């Protein structure tokens, strides 16, 4: 890329899947992947990953901490289809089957800096009570055919979901050439910003 007239802009995301709050479950691991539009292409880093299994902390918070790093760089020509990270959390049920404990997605923050996001997680529900029972019994809960479904709006009306918990993510976003290409996504003076204080980024 010539610095004078860039033809793409870059978005570098690093951060981590910090922790989760799933009050009812333990021994969870999580997978992440990115969903992005056609004009986007990953240039470096891992697009998807799978974390270790973590157990609940013994303190009051009962947090499930993964601290699973994410580091990926995208290039794009069009902000349309801005990358979303899709998280899916799995864990064993009473019979020891791995079942999905939550899906969630969030857009990578638009503005450069440090961002903390808490993603509410949900799982699809069975279509009937009987199926719910059998799926519990058989240890095969309903799952999305593709976790990436949660990053799209189309066709979601046919599903019913239940909330499960939260996953907290930390993003450090750096963009390049966005402004040069006419996309204004952040505060004007990026220099002076050492990132909003972590408190500010925390969800309410």
């Amino acid at each position, binding site marked *: 890329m010539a610095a004078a007239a860039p*033809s793409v802009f870059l978005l570098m995301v690093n951060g981590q899947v910090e922790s989760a709050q799933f009050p009812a479950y333990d021994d969870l691991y999580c997978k992440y992947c990115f969903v992005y539009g056609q004009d986007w292409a990953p240039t470096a880093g891992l697009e998807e990953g799978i974390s270790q299994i973590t157990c609940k902390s013994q303190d009051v918070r009962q947090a499930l901490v993964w601290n699973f790093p994410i580091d990926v760089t995208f290039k794009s020509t*069009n902000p349309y289809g801005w990358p979303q990270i899709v998280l899916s959390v799995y864990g064993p049920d009473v019979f020891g089957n791995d079942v999905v404990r939550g899906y969630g997605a969030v857009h990578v923050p638009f503005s450069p800096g440090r961002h903390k996001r808490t993603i509410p997680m949900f799982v*699809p529900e069975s279509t009937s009570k*009987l199926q719910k029972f059998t799926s519990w019994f058989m240890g095969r809960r309903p799952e999305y055919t593709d976790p990436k479904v949660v990053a799209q709006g*189309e066709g*979601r*009306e046919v599903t019913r979901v239940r909330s499960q918990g939260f996953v907290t993510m930390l993003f450090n976003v750096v963009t390049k050439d966005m402004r040069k290409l006419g996309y204004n996504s952040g505060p004007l003076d990026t220099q002076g910003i050492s990132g909003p204080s972590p408190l500010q980024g925390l969800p309410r």
Partner: protein
Amino acid sequence: MNPKEEKVKIITEEFVENYDDSEVRRPKTSKAQKHKRKKQVQKASPEDMVSEKSPSDSLQEPSQDDPNGSLLNVTARRSQRSLPPTPSASRTGFAEFSMRERLREKLQAARSKAESALLQEIPTPRPRHLRSPREKESETELGTEPRAEVERTQQEDDSQSNSRVKVRRSARKIKSKTQVPPGYPSAEEAYNFFTFTFDPEPEDLEKKPKSKPRERRNQMEEEEEEEEEEEEGQHPMQTRANKAVTVDEEDVLGRPEEDFLLDLGPTEEDFVAVRPAEYQSVHTRLQVEDKLLFAPSKHSVPMYKKLPENVQPRFLEDEGLYIGARPEVPRTSQNIMENRLLVQEPVQKWFGDDGRILALPNPIKPFPSRPPVPAQSQDVKRELETLYKKAVKYIHSTTQHMIGSGDSPVNFQLDVDISGLIFTHHPCFSREHVLAAKLAQLYDQYLARRQRNKAKFLTDKLQALRNALQMGLNPANPHKSPNLTPKAISEYKSEIWQTRKLRDAEQEKDRTLLKTLIKVWKEMKSLREFQRFTNTPLKLVLRKEKVDQKADEEAQEAEIQAELSELLEEHLMEYEEQLEVYKAAQQRWKAWRKARRAKKKKKKKKKPAEEEQPQEEEEEEEEEEEQGEEEPVKPVPPQPTNRAALEQQVRERAAQGRRRPGEPVLVPELSLAGSVTPTDQCPRVEVLRREDVKRRSVHVKVLFNHKEVSRTDSRPLGTDFRVHFGQIFNLQIFNWPESLTLQVYETVGHSGTSLLAEVFLPIPETTAVTGRAVLEEVEFSSNQHVTLDHEGVGSGVPFSFEADGSNQLILMTSGKVANSVSWAVGENGIPLIPPLSQQNIGLRSALKRADAISSIGTSGLTDMKKLAKWAAESKLDPNDPNNGPLMQLISVATSGESYVPDFFRLEQLQQEFNFVSDEELNRSKRFRLLRLRSQEVPEFRNYKQVPLYDREILEKVFQDYEKRLRERNVIEAKDHIDTHRATVAKYLQQVRESVINRFLIARHHFLPADLIAEEEVPNISILGLSLFKLAEQKRPLRPRRKGRKKVTAQNLSDGDIKLLVNIIRAYDIPMRKPVASKFQQQSRPSRTFIEKHPASPATQSPAHSTDYPLDQVRVRPFVEVSFQRTVCHTTTAEGPNPSWNEELELPFRAPSGDYSTTSLQSVRDDVFINIFDEVLSDVLEDERDRGSGLHTRIERHWLGCVKIPFSTIYFQARIDGTFKIDIPPVLLGYSKERGFDSVRSLSEGSYLTLFITMEPQLVPGEPVREKFDSQEDEKLLHATEKFQAECSLKFPHRQCLTTAINISGKTVFITRYLKPLNPPQEFLDAYPNNPQATAELVAHYVSLIPFLPDSVSFAGICDLWSTSDQFLDLLAGDEEEHAVLLCNYFLFLGKKAWLVMGSAIPEGPTAYVLTREQSHYLIWNPCSGHVYRQFDTFCPLKSVGCLIGPDNVWFNIQRYDSPLRINFDVTKPKLWKSFFSRSLPYPGLSSIQPEELRYQHTDKAAASELQDRIEKILKEKIMDWRPRNLTRWNRYCTSTLRHFLPQLERSQGGDVDEDHQAELLRQLGDYRFSGFPLHMPYSEIKPLVEAVHSTGVHSIDIPNVEFALAVYVHPYPRNVLSVWIYVASLIRNR
């Protein structure tokens, strides 16, 4: 803080007072009381401020009015001032007590309320002794507070502590914050106080005596301050609550109070005094109120009060000024307002001149501006501007395209109504007619003038102006004068002058007109008398209207006087001006004279010096002289005005222009009451004239854009020279009209027609819609000269009324056409007006858009500036609504752009929300790309990374797409050679597109299963099975094949999918023939049809096998699989029955990397499995080298191929079986080795055993879930569903078909497709005695129709069945169409035939045809034309699902479904479940097939042309494929081959193998041949090329190789073409 303290104090005080227990508290108490009193005193001030309080309240209970407010004030003030309180020893009186009591009640109420409502944190009264330490602390704080206060007040002077400062500050803060709305904050603070800190009182009291260190106090104060701030924060919320509480203090003294009291202590009951409620009688209250309140009277106010003294009300409206309608206000309200204004603000600025309150015009429009629902009436449409937008074709349209169906052109309609024609002059006019016309014209003029009545209007205006001037000048009217500046006065005056002039002119005109009218009438009367007959019924009656002479005179006199005075004034002014001018001139003149004299003197003096500069002098003199010439005369002083002369003038004018006073007003009335003299009483000339008139008739032609479009009927000219047509012409037009002309033609007798005149009609405004258009009269005239020999005056010729011929007149034929032109209105109320875009671009259309213009109908106005100027000059009344549109227009025109339409439009701000303008959107390549991608246009659906800048997008990107778009409408015969096929291809393309679009829509409908993977609810059997499984062996001895996991196609990428081809073995590969046996005649081999040569094994004697040396391998076959340009091949095996058992792996690439189901379904690639013979030939030139090297050349000779479409593999998931190798009928140099085993002897051809699958297995696309509409009976449809459900329950894998979807997307019952249909006659005639041969011929014909799988074209959505005629039209279809056509032919031939729905290899689910011969059944493959016996082991049909006949459907309910093992006797209900049975009898469904098929003979010339072209193309291709080698064509061989081909066609590919070989050898000599004919149905060039390429003939690179290629195209009816391509390579043997 302070109010809080105060409150504490108050309460403590109450305690003290009631208990009256300790002397210690006495001073404090009294102090508190004092505070109270003070508060009472000061209560007045907040009272004033709180104006919202109802007066009654304030009257009744002054003390209760917001004590908090007063409290606050007091405390605030006190603390601010920090004044020591004056000690008061006096005890509180009863009044005070009661007041206090009330206060206390109120506080209690407030507290209890708050307790219950606001402060949920203290739900129950807290027990005093169970307090938290924190609470205690606060209590102590509060408790000490009063003391601190006391101390502070006492020790005011030693204010070294900062506490006071703080206190002050805080107090100030409160004050500043709270005093703006006095009352509220304090209330709320009181509230807080009570709710929070009431409890501690007793303790406080106890603690009070304790002395505390000062620091502590300070600290506490600080804390309080903090608290205070907190409270302030809470203000807004609590204020509201408090307000609510304080409203009804009186009533809320119930339980809450007791709570409160309980809280306080047990003795609290003593405080409560029960008293009756206070009551004031209404009367007294009213009295009191009367004093305080002001109620304006409802009676109307006399006029004099509203106006300044001695001023008469003036009604502007009467003066002719425009005054808008006042808004309607009830009279009483108005009166009240007036009264109030008069009392409150005695200045009369509120009242206008007319004595009414000034008011703006009523802003409410008389009619709603919102357009009503369009359905109501079309009249309201006018308010809506209809914006024409070109209809955009809906991309995802589901409509079916039909061949040749274009857009129907849009029609617009112009209605031309020609109602009639009136001649104002005609050659046949008699003199009387001329006069009559004149009279009529004058009368019309008169009527028009009278209607306008301009004179009256001007008179009124003059009057109004005069009045206004009078008013302005009147010194007694001081309040009005300011707005009448001298300038305005002068303007008024000039206007008066102008108006007067105009009026005079108008009056004069009126009068002249009347006079002329009378004069003409008189002339006419005299003429009638003179000629003694009358021609016209015209009659003028003058009606006299008497007038009061005196009043009239007076009015006139007054008028004259007014005028006179004005004139005088004017003259005076003029005189003065002139005088001024004169004076100035005079002075100048005098000065000049003086100067001149002086100069003269000077001159004289200078005379001696003059000689020095004579020149200059002269010049000077000249100048002087000139000056002298300039000022030759002394200015004349102006004459003062002569009043008498002026009066004289005025009077004269009045007499001239106006009616004389007392003279009756004359009203002329023209009527047609007169009688016309009958013809027989007229003189001869007149009779002649009348006859001539009768002979004449007139018609009108309508010319649109200079073309005659219609004409009226010819109508005779009436005696009154009026023609009535009353015809309306509806002109259907396409373009914006350029001109519209009417031509008036006159026919005289039978002689002929002559064009009288042309009338140009204006093109109507877009608003002129039929039904609303007004009939207009357009005048015309002609310049032709007509002289007549009768009484008629002629035209263009002079004539005279006078007897002596003087005073000649020349009249031209002229008249008026009454017509109206308007736009027609369509059915749905839309005017059929061509879009504006069609009009001439420019000002015209711009004008059209400005509604104001079209509404005032000034289409001719083009110069806006001029118009604006005119409007400014004419001083239009801008307030007058009649001028509204014009003013608007002018404002628009002058301002430039901002054009405020008079209509309502939805999405009016759309423009502003548009991202970019449409043009830019269209221009930008990037936007275009993005848009196309989002529309899922195939070319761009998967376009990745659309560049950011336009410049980075290559034009190339769009080329394909644009080309496709272009070609969609252009039928191009390049690829298709004959146009019919091109059309069909186009049509198919369109159908495909529409179906794909439909599918794209369907793709966006999701079922839960699409999104969620969920286990199905297991039924008992599965549960049982799974239980069983637990006990199952982990590794069974005979493992069962488990289904592989299917992969959904979404997360795949290139290289993930592989095609696995397992080539197992082959049978009966043709073998090389020994070259030695070159002239040996082979026995004629068997034909395709088995029946025909039952003895074939016998002929296949391996007679010549002995020729071969046994050690030589006669064929070394290998298999090459090519797919998507990837080629893999097996090792070479040996012998005619090789066994490879090899797995080939071919990568699969989806088109443009799209692995979605849709895209995979539409993959059209085929897997070619070619069998080659590897021939090793010795190339050693020199025998001596043999020892040192291996010199062999590997040649490969194509033997045959198997072609399997990818779509089949995709849908079948695996293909497993033995396939017949497609071996050309003739393989030069090869022959079949037969007869080794008797079992295989039955078979014909060679076979290959294959297993093909994909890794990983892909989920095939699901059928579309759309329910198609149907025209079938609901019951029948229901029955089909039931039938299908039953069948699929029993045999889920057997195909059961009862309905099909026809090409227009409708569900049709399947038997409707079957009906006897005639095959081409020539087939019937070919073998009249051999039905079997005929059947074969027909099958061959059907197989020649190109095959096009539906699943490819329709992306696996649905199987469309076209009828046989459609099929023949399209010349493409899949198995069903072929089968249906073949079945129909067989039915026609009298066979018993059925459609077999089942599955075959390699096609999968397919349709075959079953026929019943005398003793056996035959199974026909409709696509290949092959026929098999029922028990043929190599029959590709592997299972039978159902049979379909013309009247029933039978489902196979036998145990087996292989045709080998089933019984085809459909009459057995145990074996075949029939759809129509006794319970549901066959209703006799009509067929959807045509009655008869018509066949056109195909053009033979075209076929031969095609043949040449194909040959040329193929030859070129072969040369292209051999870029490194020279390609030689053996022309002689080619011509020989060309001879073979027709024979092949005749024998339908029967083996003529040996003949060819022999023939070739005989003709060409010693050559090594390798070649074969290819036979294909013709659809396009491309498959032919592919086929030739796949044989690899071109790949021989022996240097001396020669090629031969011949093509033969055999035409069958209906453009079915059979193509034969004979390719051969020749190598000369040395």
